[in-house]
């Protein structure tokens, strides 16, 4: 697999080599035993070490919710902000300090309910941020109400007769606002998560990653039918750029386009003729959007990088404008500014 995006936004490597342990803060981790967040935390710390990120140049920003405790456990700079607003703080920080590696950790409630507005605008602007959305399809910290990604009909404390909300798909939203890097992974597949996180870290622009994450207390096994090792081959589709979309034990099934609709077909003797070939670099996000619409039981659920394109970032263009203005007008002169366009002298 090739990496399409540049690495220029990554902080320069740490002066002293850093290990995974260097990214572990001294705080006691307070998630429930068995929570999927542990696996994500460990993998993020490992990715930081693998990429030799200098700790001082990394900032984790979160909102409110179980996932949003994340920054306390990272031995980097961190900001546990208010519900839904992490992308706004991250945007301001990135504008003020473009050289920092800024990560947003959010959940399905924080990112898509109370903070939905910020999420779409941040992705739309292509601010150079990495957004990890832990999707467990439930409100955990407030003890078990349905979330915007909960499946319709779900019985929770706040919906004793079942939800009547239609759920929102995080990836459809991200692709709908033309996210430049959009991916999905799961807390049950560390190797895949490592690949996706590294790709996200290397992407220049907003990298949006949905992570299927299990809440052992309020929504245990929400993704079991897709991500558990025994069923994964039949129910999950792992996307690879330039490769035909194959799944099933021994790759016996594939995705083909029937007009504008995807269809699942049996592949005869490993033949891939006519199957959809994944193109994460397509300029138009149409096919990526189609993939984001695929769900069980009619289709396998796709994992991997749906889209990864190069496009100027908000912070990069802001600096360009600043440099152009300075080149054209010279460095600003405060005294001249105070004088304004017209003055008169009183003697």
């Amino acid at each position, binding site marked *: 697999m090739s990496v399409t995006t540049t690495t220029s936004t990554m902080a320069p490597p740490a002066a002293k080599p850093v290990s995974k342990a260097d990214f572990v803060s001294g705080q006691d981790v307070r998630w429930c035993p068995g929570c999927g967040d542990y696996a994500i935390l460990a993998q993020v710390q490992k990715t930081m070490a693998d990429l030799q990120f200098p*700790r001082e140049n990394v900032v984790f920003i979160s909102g409110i919710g179980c996932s949003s405790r994340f920054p306390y456990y990272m031995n980097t700079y961190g900001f546990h902000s208010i519900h839904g*607003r992490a992308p706004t703080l991250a945007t301001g920080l990135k504008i*003020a300090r473009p050289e*920092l590696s800024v990560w947003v950790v959010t959940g399905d409630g924080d990112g898509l309910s109370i903070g939905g507005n910020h999420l779409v605008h941040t992705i739309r602007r292509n601010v150079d941020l990495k957004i990890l959305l832990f999707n467990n399809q439930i409100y955990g910290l407030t003890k078990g109400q349905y979330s915007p990604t909960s499946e319709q009909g779900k019985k929770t404390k706040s919906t004793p007769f079942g939800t009547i909300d239609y759920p929102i798909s995080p990836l459809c939203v991200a692709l709908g606002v033309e996210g430049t890097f959009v991916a999905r992974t799961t807390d049950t597949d560390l190797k895949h998560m490592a690949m996706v996180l590294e790709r996200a870290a290397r992407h220049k622009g907003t990298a949006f990653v949905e992570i299927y994450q299990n809440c052992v207390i309020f929504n245990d096994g929400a993704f079991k039918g897709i991500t558990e090792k025994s069923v994964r081959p039949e129910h999950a589709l792992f996307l690879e750029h330039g490769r035909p979309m194959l799944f099933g034990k021994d790759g016996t099934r594939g995705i083909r386009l029937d007009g504008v609709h995807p269809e699942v077909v049996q592949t005869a003797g490993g033949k891939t003729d006519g199957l959809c070939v994944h193109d994460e670099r397509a300029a138009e996000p149409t096919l990526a959007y189609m993939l984001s619409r695929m769900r069980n039981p009619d289709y396998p659920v796709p994992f991997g990088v749906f889209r990864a394109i190069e496009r100027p970032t908000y912070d990069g263009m802001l600096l360009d404008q600043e440099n152009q203005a300075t080149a054209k007008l010279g460095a600003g002169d405060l005294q001249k500014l105070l004088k304004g366009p017209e003055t008169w002298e009183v003697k």
Partner: protein
Amino acid sequence: MSNVTQTHSGKKLHKLEKVAVRFAGDSGDGMQLVGGKFTETTAICGNDFATLPDFPAEIRAPTGSLPGVSGFQIHFSSHDIYTPGDAPDVLIAMNPAALKVNLKDLPENGIIVLNQDAFSDTNLKKAGYTSNPLEDGSLKRFRVYPVPVGRLNAEALSKLGLPKKDAERCKNFFALGLIYWMFDRPLDSTIGWIKDKFKKVPGIADANEAALKAGYFYGETTELIPEHYEIPQARVAPGLYRKISGNEAAALGFVAAAQLAGKQLFYGSYPITPASDILHELAIHKNLGVRTFQAEDEIAAIGATIGAAFGGALALTGTSGPGVALKSEAIGLAVMTELPLVIVNVQRGGPSTGLPTKTEQADLLQAMYGRNGECPMIIVAPATPGECFHMAIEAARLAVKYMGPVMFLSDGFLANSAEPWQVPRVEDLPRIDVHHPTVEGHFQPYLRNPETLARPWALPGTPGLEHRIGGLEKEDGSGNVSYDAENHQHMIHTRAAKVAGAAKDIPPAKVAGPDHGELLLVGWGGTYGALRAAAEEARAKGKSVAHLHLRHLNPFPANLGDVLTNYKRVLVAELNCGQLLSMIRAKYLIDAKGLNKVKGKPFQVVEVLRGIEEAMR
């Protein structure tokens, strides 16, 4: 209007000390534009002045309708003046609606110059007139000069071959030219502006210039208008001056503050009347290290501002009352994380959407208490348009010194009103000291400066100082999350003590007038001019009245309690239902009284004077 006559170009020229002129027309008539040009020329003539734009919230209400009337008043003088004038001496009315809306403010024998071509049956009907005021004798109490502005303007431009509609648009410059003649003002500054503004469309430039000159010559050559005045230069402190509005001054003040602190200025904002001009002004200055961010909403604007403050910028957000309401949770976060930022609230009429283009001072208690929990914040309020500059620097100084959000309470009047402003010399401005720790070792993000109680401002990117902050209660010193009961009470008291302690660091309350006496008139914010003028008039009438204008509203100046006790009566005048009044009564246990108005308009001097007299009865 007192007159001294002299000769000038063979015509009678009457000398005046001061005059208030109001331009009024349809919101599409360009009244704000000609008002602004008249102001610039007045500035260059060396008069003191104050202006009051008054425009509808709708960009273009139906043509000729009463809600569509836009006005601009300028008060100019050969001596110090403090307000845009209670009432106009001269009204320029471009249509019947403009006449109807503004006539009630005009004193007996006031001058009306009106565009008689606009007094058609249709326009009269739109303005709700059942008979033509030019013919029914209803204007008998005034000096009325009907001028066929539309026809004369069309004739003046007939040779330029402009489409009728474009020529028609120049009639505001015809009216401006006529008023320039009336007050003996030079045309060159405005002609220079026209040439620059329309340099890409020379036809339009020529037409506007021709209209301006035609209006001027009409006044000079016809004998129809016997009103021709001169207002000599004001005697003001020597120096270099410019015209400035409150929003401009605030924007420049924050640019200056950032430079004085050696910082990048970050401005996160969402468009809102009457604060948007600050965003427009700051967005220009990219080569001065100003980074502006037009956010998706008010919450995002302050969220980004907090993020920028965490990153070490001099961080600023600006809005009006409804926006502050949306930002209140985030302001709490800034209080909790003790990060320096300034929130500009250009107050407007409320509640809810209220009166977006009108002024009010009803967000003081919102600034004081409008957040969950015990959440104190420093509050400052500039008194004049020009002072917005210096208070911006003061707000930034307090924010970085005491590590917390500071509310800057401007208002719609200050924002849009303009006055002459002595251009400060950069080298005379106070430096703002900023310290960022760099020491490695066991870093404690909430270890406080014992004098100010401020915590260190440690920036991401600094090796060894990696730390986490957030909205959860923090253990003092370590900054670790703490649910400890004693610590919570200690932190609540510490945050309050930090804000209260800033009182040691702000100028003492200083009155204008006698330091002991019968009545102390207390105000804050944009009412300064009216209060000062009213107190001076009261003293001129022999009354023992002093005026105190507060620039620091939280904490109050340390000597305020003592000052209040030096007067038999305390009268707190404000454009709300008594917000500063309740703060003063609560804190100092004195029986202060209120003088209050909530009409979306500034105080008139005469109203305040009447209030003083009633309070002293």
